[in-house]
């Protein structure tokens, strides 16, 4: 017997994997041609992509940027490429982009909306990136709404200041009364004091102060507002104001107080049951009927009010979802610590509920922002309204795709970045176990 062993004693050297399994080839095999169905789908998709791109790319890039009218555009196209088809005439954007962005806002005052936008980002910074920006910046965020109104509309500075003073008066009354009597009484009297200030005193205050210390800028009328600026303005106001109202409505809907609850439910369901366009009809036709005879405040403000109410109802439902998703134990925990209702809401419930509802809140934001285009139907010149106006001009009669592409790109950039930001926020605030 020899002791020849037929069992291999040492390992074979590792072989490289087959070329079809690794690298680009392997990736293609696994991701594009893994089965016959997938192969067919891939080929169809490749053809579709080719078809779309072969139309769009030459149209976008073999285009005319400098011309005064569509006819001139076509002449240049004929000269360069021998046909007027399949080439974009971006000259219309080149010619009118300022108007598409700012509407009929006086061109020497463009710095004001731009400054307002930059300051908006500054004011939002402590809210959006709370970990990197000092908390004291929140004071600026509180001042910003009044500053923005002054920047956009101009006029005397005392108007916004007196509006802000209304809040100060209300707060003052609340603190005094709640120390002397009770918190509930304080809230009621505080709100009452603010309302009295705004309705009866503020106009006298404004005119008196304006005649004593006249500080002001050139006033811009609401009907000069338009373009993408109008969409941003309406969106920001509706979103900013609707969040606190939405929280109150959501709490009202969850509350044990029967009458309060049904008032909130009625409001929310009514607003959610009707299309925004009917609310805009209310803003343009009916809101003046609902107010004391003789009041005639401007259309943009009326639209803002209705859009705010509209988004508040949706916001309330989103936040209610967040409240409902909180485990019961959180409420009970807050109770057992002896916190009262508002303390519990502020310290325990709301921080968690708002965090859960971030995706919903942001998608409501995006929805409202997109819905601001509806104001073109009631005759305001937002981007879509301006596009029709530009088309009505003889120079650009018959131009469609370039304008639509530009508008779509504007909205896409803003909405898409908002949705990405919400994803970032969701990841950042994620404290659960994953």
């Amino acid at each position, binding site marked *: 017997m020899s002791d020849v062993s037929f069992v291999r004693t040492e390992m074979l050297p590792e072989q490289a994997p087959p070329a079809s399994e690794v690298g680009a080839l392997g990736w293609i095999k696994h991701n594009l041609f893994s089965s016959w169905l997938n192969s067919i789908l891939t080929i169809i998709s490749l053809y579709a992509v080719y078809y779309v791109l072969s139309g769009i790319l030459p149209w976008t890039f073999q285009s005319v940027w400098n011309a005064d009218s569509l006819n001139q555009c076509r002449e240049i196209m004929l000269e360069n490429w021998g046909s007027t088809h399949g080439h974009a005439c971006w000259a219309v954007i080149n010619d009118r982009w300022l108007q598409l962005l700012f509407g009929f806002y006086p061109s020497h005052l463009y710095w004001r909306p731009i400054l307002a936008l930059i300051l908006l980002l500054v004011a939002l910074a402590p809210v959006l990136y709370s970990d990197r920006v000092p908390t004291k910046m929140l004071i600026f965020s509180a001042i910003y709404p009044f500053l923005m109104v002054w920047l956009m509309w101009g006029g005397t500075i005392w108007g916004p200041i007196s509006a802000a003073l209304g809040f100060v008066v209300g707060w003052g009354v609340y603190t005094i009364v709640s120390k002397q009597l009770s918190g509930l009484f304080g809230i009621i009297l505080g709100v009452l004091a603010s309302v009295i200030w705004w309705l009866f005193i503020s106009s006298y205050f404004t005119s008196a102060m304006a005649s004593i210390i006249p500080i002001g800028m050139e006033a811009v009328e609401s009907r000069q507002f338009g373009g993408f600026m109008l969409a941003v303005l309406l969106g920001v106001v509706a979103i900013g104001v609707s969040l606190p109202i939405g929280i109150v409505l959501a709490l009202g809907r969850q509350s044990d107080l029967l009458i309060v609850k049904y008032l909130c439910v009625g409001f929310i369901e009514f607003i959610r049951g009707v299309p925004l366009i*009917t609310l805009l*009809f209310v803003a343009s036709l009916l809101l003046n*009927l*609902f107010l004391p005879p003789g009041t005639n405040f401007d259309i943009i403000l009326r639209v803002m009010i209705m859009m705010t109410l509209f988004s508040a109802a949706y916001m309330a439902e989103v936040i209610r979802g967040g409240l409902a998703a909180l485990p019961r134990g959180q409420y009970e925990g807050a109770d057992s610590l002896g916190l009262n209702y508002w303390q519990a809401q502020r310290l325990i419930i709301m921080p968690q509920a708002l965090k859960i509802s971030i995706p919903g809140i942001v998608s409501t934001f995006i929805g409202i922002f*997109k819905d601001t*285009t509806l104001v073109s139907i009631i005759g305001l010149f937002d981007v*879509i309204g301006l596009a029709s106006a530009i088309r009505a001009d003889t120079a650009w009669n018959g131009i*469609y795709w370039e304008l639509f592409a530009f508008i779509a790109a504007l909205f896409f950039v803003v909405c*898409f970045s908002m949705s990405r930001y919400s994803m970032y926020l969701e990841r950042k605030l994620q404290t659960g176990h994953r």
Partner: protein
Amino acid sequence: MTTLTDPPKEHFRLSMLLYDTRYRSATIQVIALIGFMLLAAWIISNTIQNLEALGKPVEFGFFGEPASYDINQRLLEYTSRDSHLRAAFIGLLNTLVVAVLGCITATIVGVLVGVLRLSNNWLVARIMTVYVEMFRNVPVLLWIVLAMAILIEGLPAPNAFRGDNPTATMDLFNSVAVTNRGVYIPEFLFSRGLGDIHLFGASSIRFNVSLDLVAFLVVLGGSIFAMRKISGWAAAKQEATGDRPTIWHIQLGVLFVPMIILLTVLGFHLGYPELKGFNFKGGTHMRNSLIALWLALSLYTAAFIAEIVRAGILAISKGQTEAASALGLRPGRTMRLVILPQALRVIIPPMISNYLNLTKNSSLAIAVGYMDITGTLGGITMNQTGRELECVLLLMLVYLCISLSISAVMNWYNNRVKLVER
């Protein structure tokens, strides 16, 4: 030793309304109610004063007056001599038409896209992502206007179909004409039809019910009932003997033979659109406004539905798929029998709100001139009669009713498919 005494009897003091939690809630509610009623009273009194100043008391008599405007896309007969109420009714039907068409298309496209977004084919998944992001992040109004522009500018005019060498031809075996004035599709005609029944006499909501359609639906219902009986019989036999009898050919026969017999008896044929003069005649004419609205709304909503479907499928834990594969189910069956039934319960509630959104967004029809309820009642009727208050309030009421009925129906369905836990 301790003696038990009653707690001191508390007398009601006025301050307890503020400090005692038992009474405070009542105080808050009373104050809220008073505040609300004051607000309502203020608004109503303002409105009355304003309307008096304008000389327009609230009344609905104008609904009986002739509308004197035309509605070009309609389901029922209507002339400009009909009343405003009739016009509003036609508009309401148009709203429902576009809402139903849109919901069906959006669901089909949305489910398809949602499933394809999860496909393991990289290219397909990416294309679907692009589609979803593109449609979700651009306003629906822009899509509607864009669709309208594409239809008007991009499609051939009817006269392109004329002549010996036409630049455009009709599609689908010469039965469908796609022109820039709308799409002409074949209509169903019955040469030996049963006629119509007229409902509601001469009132504003009068309509005709085609007896042919009723007969068809009755036969179809009967066939489906018979099919279910047959498959029940087959299942019983399978339970008893272990063999399932082949029934698919019987099923097909039961479904189609009575239908074909009925259609032959009624003399069913298609009425094709034909080019006559400057335009197509015959067939059913779907105007551009309807097509643009339908297309834009369904593609826009489909993007949202796709996300819902995707989230619903992702919400099912991977173990379910693995368990199904372990049982030997193929991927298609895994999807149909294991994943979808569970995903549906996550999917349906947000789907309801998307159907509602689509219905409400259909009010944007006014931007392309499709005469839905917003275009008739809230558009021309309001402008002609100058009755803003009545028209807008009625318009809101109509939409509220539609929304509440849709959510009621869908909630009923949701409760049926919901997984009953404990």
